[in-house]
């Protein structure tokens, strides 16, 4: 049974003031739970260790995919293959942050990788700021949380300049290079997430600006805001695969910009490899003995309960839970039906007394740096709730 601690919620007015306007779901229910998941110090430490090991496996698996030219198997759009290879070759294409979704880790259950949101992860505002604010608001020990997300991402922005050296030398090496942050207009959550990242980069010491995606300009020589100011870095909270499919001309332009070394795009194109659920199959082949991986295949698995997912599916859409006998117990529709499918061994999430299920989300920025939970039913979708945590 998941252990929970009831807390006083932050009221909507405070949340609005904090810039967290997506506090109420479309069915009128609160998106942020008024309970915290209680985890032990050992459980927190185990999440930390597991996440770091899983990231290392992803790096090895990506190397394997690139060497063996397995892009097609992973469903990678052909017009991004060059960009992926180029970004992989040079460390300046630094991965700023990602979020691993994990089953287990509490209630005596083993930690299992569900998927890796490596390209455009959200839930950042909630994890880095909101769950800390809940402790503060309830006069609880604000140190009793695995939450170093803000500082870790600050340091990781500095590594765009210092790479593997000590981030303390950022000030000596930084020469005024600017980062432009972009998200699509009309989506509060994505805009607030992007602006939070901008604020983190500003705290790191970068010159930064924000421009909506539709007002950002591109040519072979670079990336510009609406006033035609050029930028050395561009962070886009917009999926690479959507650029490939919806804006193929831009995919080509971005490839040329990278080729000409005119700008660096974040998160790097290789995070699309990590993002593909096809990687779960590659990982399962390369590391069959890893305790963190579930058996995964491009073909339906024989004789076991499993989950069918689209390689670039999001928010639990286009997901099917298939029993050992082939019958389907649960399934969701969505816009990702045309993507290739993977079949991942089923694992049950930890449950509370009402039968709600909990999935851990662990953020990674150079190392595992903080976590939170999602509460939902069998398939975690965009109606699942955010649940903070405390270490006791």
């Amino acid at each position, binding site marked *: 049974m998941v252990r929970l601690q009831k807390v006083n919620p932050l009221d909507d007015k405070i949340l609005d003031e904090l810039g967290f306007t997506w506090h109420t779901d479309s069915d009128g229910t609160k998106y942020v739970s008024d309970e915290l998941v209680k985890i032990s110090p050992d459980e927190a430490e185990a999440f930390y260790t597991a996440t770091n090991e899983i990231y290392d496996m992803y790096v090895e698996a990506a190397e394997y995919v690139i060497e063996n030219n397995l892009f097609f198997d992973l469903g990678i759009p052909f017009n991004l293959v060059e960009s992926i290879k180029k970004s992989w070759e040079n460390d300046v294409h630094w991965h700023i942050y990602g979020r691993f979704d994990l089953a287990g880790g509490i209630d005596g259950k083993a930690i299992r990788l569900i998927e890796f949101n490596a390209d455009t992860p*959200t839930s950042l505002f909630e994890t880095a700021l909101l769950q800390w604010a809940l402790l503060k608001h309830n006069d609880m020990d604000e140190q009793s949380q695995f939450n170093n997300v803000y*500082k870790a991402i600050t340091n990781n922005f500095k590594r765009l300049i210092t790479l593997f050296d000590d981030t303390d030398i950022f000030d000596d090496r930084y020469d005024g290079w600017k980062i432009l942050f972009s998200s699509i207009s*009309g989506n509060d959550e994505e805009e607030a997430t992007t602006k939070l990242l901008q604020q983190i980069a500003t705290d790191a010491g970068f010159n930064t*600006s924000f421009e909506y995606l539709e007002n950002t300009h591109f040519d072979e020589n670079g990336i510009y805001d609406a006033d035609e100011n050029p930028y050395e870095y561009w962070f886009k909270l917009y999926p690479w695969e959507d650029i490939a499919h919806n804006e193929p001309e831009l995919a080509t332009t971005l490839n040329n910009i990278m080729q000409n070394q005119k700008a660096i795009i974040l998160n790097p194109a290789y995070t699309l490899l990590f993002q593909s659920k096809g990687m779960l199959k590659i990982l399962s082949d390369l590391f069959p003995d890893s305790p963190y991986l579930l058996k995964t295949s491009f073909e339906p698995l024989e004789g076991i309960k499993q989950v069918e997912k689209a390689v670039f599916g999001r928010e639990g859409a286009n997901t099917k839970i298939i029993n050992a006998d082939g019958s389907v117990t649960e399934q969701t529709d969505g816009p990702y039906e045309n993507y290739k499918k993977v079949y991942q061994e089923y694992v049950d999430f930890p449950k509370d007394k009402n039968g709600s299920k909990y999935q851990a989300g662990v953020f990674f920025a150079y190392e595992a740096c903080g976590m939170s939970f999602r509460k939902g039913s069998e398939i975690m979708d965009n109606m699942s709730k955010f649940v903070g945590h405390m270490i006791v």
Partner: protein
Amino acid sequence: MKHISSIAGGVALGSAGVVMMSILSGCEAPQEQQQNRFLVIEQQTNGKYIVVEEMPTEGASRAIIREKDENGNTTERFMNEAEMKALAEQEYQKVQDGTSETIQDGGGSAGMGLAGTILAVAAGSLLGNMIGNALMNNKNFSKNSASSNKSAYSRSAASRTSKSSTRKSFFGSSSRTSSSRSYGS
């Protein structure tokens, strides 16, 4: 918990933390204003203070003072603009008397008292540009100001250019207009 880090006093949240803390503590939401600063001032083992973080803020100037209590535990307190201004004025009096450490040669190299530190880094925004500029013209003050500030103050904004071009924009018709959350993304 060897590897598990957490947030102490909101300071690890940088400029986001100060906004969060002021809203959670019921202070007014920050007003639109230019060039004010948010400072994190830390007491050193010698009892002196230095600025470890400095960020421009759109609201009033504010500071978090991080000190050690008698048991060696780190405590943090919040200082609003009025309190900072009072300390800066008090120290400015000493400047005029010639007794302030902010105008002594080498005064700031190992940190200064709290009032001196605040005056050294924020004289202009707290007491006005005339006083700020006058102080900066004092060689010792200017040196002490620099050495009491260890923060990575963000550089001036990008200079604007206005050349016309044939650059393309995208995302016009294909924008996702969903207002729902997107956890999976």
